[in-house]
């Protein structure tokens, strides 16, 4: 019933010249998304992937279990000295992420261009 979560990794460089690892998600982010969300993040090399950008452009549904997976990622990132940012959330999920406090630990941007320009 839930749309399978897919994750893809892209390597980009910000206009300031910093390497940025982009995790692009597609589908639902729910309790069944652990491998796609945490697994794909944990597979990144911690030594080089210091700036991680989450792309939610193709995600329509995020529930509290999915938000918990994002928070688990933020915990691991904080412990590894990585910085996490996100873009592509709808206005509603931007509000939800703000309500639960995620914006304190992950900067949110409307799109990829704005996100890269800030990194």
């Amino acid at each position: 019933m839930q749309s399978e979560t897919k994750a893809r990794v892209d390597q980009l460089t910000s206009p300031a010249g910093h390497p940025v690892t982009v995790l692009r998600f597609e589908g639902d982010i729910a309790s069944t998304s652990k491998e796609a969300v945490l697994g794909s993040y944990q597979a990144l090399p911690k030594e080089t992937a210091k700036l991680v950008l989450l792309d939610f452009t193709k995600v329509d549904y995020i529930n509290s279990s999915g938000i918990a997976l994002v928070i688990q990622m933020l915990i691991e990132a904080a412990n590894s000295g990585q910085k996490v940012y996100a873009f592509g959330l709808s206005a509603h999920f931007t509000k939800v992420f703000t309500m639960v406090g995620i914006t304190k630990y992950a900067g949110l941007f409307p799109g990829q261009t704005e996100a890269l320009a800030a990194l």
Partner: protein
Amino acid sequence: MTNVKSTCVEVRLPSRLGYEKVAMSTAAAVAKLMGFREDRVDDLKTAVAEACINAIEHGNRLNEGLSVGVVLSAGDDQLEVKVIDDGKGLKALPPKPDIDRKIHGEEDPRGMGMFLIQALVDEAEWVKGSNGKSSYVRLVIRLDKVAE
């Protein structure tokens, strides 16, 4: 479909995660017929989804032999949603989630569903079933007359 006053819509879901999306879509359809703004429909969808997930996971403990009832009652200026399960109901509302405590490992990263429900609708109450079963959460979302 211009008159939805005092209309009641009922959905029965299997206790299987993912089926909360059926209740979400139904609630969204009723709210749109009533004239709710798009942002309020989104609020309602998330609140209904979280209420159904709680009913499936905690109320019915993922027992697929049990179902979750969703009753939508559309009034003149508000939509009431009851999500009913076969659990005993809540002993107490959990504390408001604290992102700092979560990030520092002092609090479970999960446990935000009820906070989101309370934050996104105008009224939310959890009612224990009188016979130790048929507990429900009752949500109310009101039409914003000013924006109409």
